[in-house]
């Protein structure tokens, strides 16, 4: 079941396109904003409101990097692993994060606090290495900075 807020937010986008079937990504992101990820049930609900078959929605969802089809932690850490961040020290940053959090890339901490994922170039290469936590961009990172940044996210 879509919550009234989710439904309202999705319907508010209907006028943006000549056909509401174009809203697959927008609708899934709205649901993900509220729930953290997009479950099979969520797909069914979105399928109903948009009139798009579930298979097509999942076909779209599994194509895109930013739509999560598995549950995530309360906070999602996206660490840029592209070229400039790599040159400026991604490997060390990644090793620090994985050992600090005790998980591998792609995993969620046992307490459900953080999910750690790689992401492609964040477009802030002159401040590499960089990462995002939820909607926040953090850059010019080093291992100390990372520790204090993680503190902010309970």
């Amino acid at each position, binding site marked *: 079941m879509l919550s009234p807020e989710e439904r309202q937010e999705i319907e508010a986008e209907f006028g943006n396109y000549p056909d509401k079937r174009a809203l697959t990504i927008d609708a899934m992101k709205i649901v993900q904003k509220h729930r953290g990820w997009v479950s099979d049930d969520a797909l069914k609900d979105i399928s109903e409101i948009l009139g798009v078959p579930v298979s097509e929605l999942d076909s779209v969802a599994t194509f895109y990097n930013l739509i999560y089809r598995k549950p995530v932690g309360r906070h999602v850490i996206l660490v840029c692993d592209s070229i*400039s961040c790599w040159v400026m020290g991604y490997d060390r940053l990644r090793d620090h994060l994985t050992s600090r959090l005790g998980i591998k890339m792609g995993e969620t901490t046992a307490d459900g606090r953080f999910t750690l994922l790689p992401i*492609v170039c964040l477009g802030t290469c002159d401040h590499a290495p960089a990462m995002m936590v939820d909607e926040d961009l953090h850059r010019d990172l080093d291992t100390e900075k990372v520790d204090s940044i993680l503190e902010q996210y309970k």
Partner: protein
Amino acid sequence: MEKVLTKDVPADGSALDIKRYELAGGYQGVRKALKMAPKEVIDVVKQSGLRGRGGAGFPTGMKWSFVPTGADAPHPKYLCCNADEMEPGTFKDRLLMEATPHQLIEGMICAAHAIEADVAYIFLRGEYILSAERLRKALAEAYEHNYLGKNILGSGVNLEMHLHMSGGRYMCGEETGLLNALEGKRANPRTKPPFPQISGLFGKPTIVQNVETLCNVHHIINKGPEWFKGLSKSEDGGTKLYGASGKVKRPGLWELPMGTTVREILEEHAGGMKEGLRFRGLLPGGASTDFLVEEHLDLKMDFTDVQKAGSRMGTGTMIVMDDRTCPVGFVKNLEHFFAQESCGWCTPCWSGLSWAEKMLQSIEDGQGQEADLDRLSYICRMTAPGHTFCALAPGAAEPLQSALKYFREDFERHIHEKRCPWR
């Protein structure tokens, strides 16, 4: 030198709201453009020689002239701003959107008028949260001030403009991939012909244009094509946002005359290599460009000179490689990116790039074979332009083939020494 795009970028990192933007001269371009016939606007842009700044460098005015016009033209017509900045090493459009969102909107309104578009979309990459916030606010302000919506400034011209946040995929930055993503589908590319001007978004006439390109449009209308040409140091007119990342003293972004040399950007503005490091090579315009090395430093960074040296200016943001960075690891990181971002449509790309990545990893791990180098070259030949469905794989081949050309010894050392000498 005269700054155009970054003239009014606030130093404190804030965005110019509509009041400050108008005070700085904003929306004069729209007023002027709306008094011109659409064809006139196209002609002015054509004369200016403005070329796309998204990487391909296609002449903008000519691109627009292929859109059908007149009473029989199909409607609605669309203008899409490609704000899906995902080319690794590229970070220029971010600045324009975060600092001067109205500049983009104004450019788009003029462009939309030129092609008689009814609806415009800003296709923004999903990670650019701050840009989204500021663009949303700017759009609301623009609507409020009747720069968007029905009967703009009493001109009779209508334009709706929407922001779409991408689901996240490099292919969305490809013109036709963007159109498919905007239609809510997988971002596979489309074949051209038919070109988007004929059958684009939802099968209707469409123009897709990069952020930086669009930001130039109203300035050209305001001050004229000759002024625009006069800004640059080469045949390609205007200014360019150049950037540098990697282990240089001052990584950053600078608006300079088009045609500034590589050396000037690297040494003067970026301050040259960090203490103790030597320059080995750079990718001039993002990940999908061929290496330039020492001998190329006096080339002009424009569309023509760099091409003569076998590379491309691309986005104009350089990724610098120092002598303490392993070239094999460097290229492996790039091929990992391209293999991962392959959409999976055409065989040489989804199959070849993954193979290349595996070989590079082997070589980096000291388990490479002599034959791997020939096989890597072979993959570059398989993914040459025209062999694949879109330009992703040919782009992936560029740093690989040029690394094999300029740094072959380093690859061979890995193979013969059975280890990475940089570790």
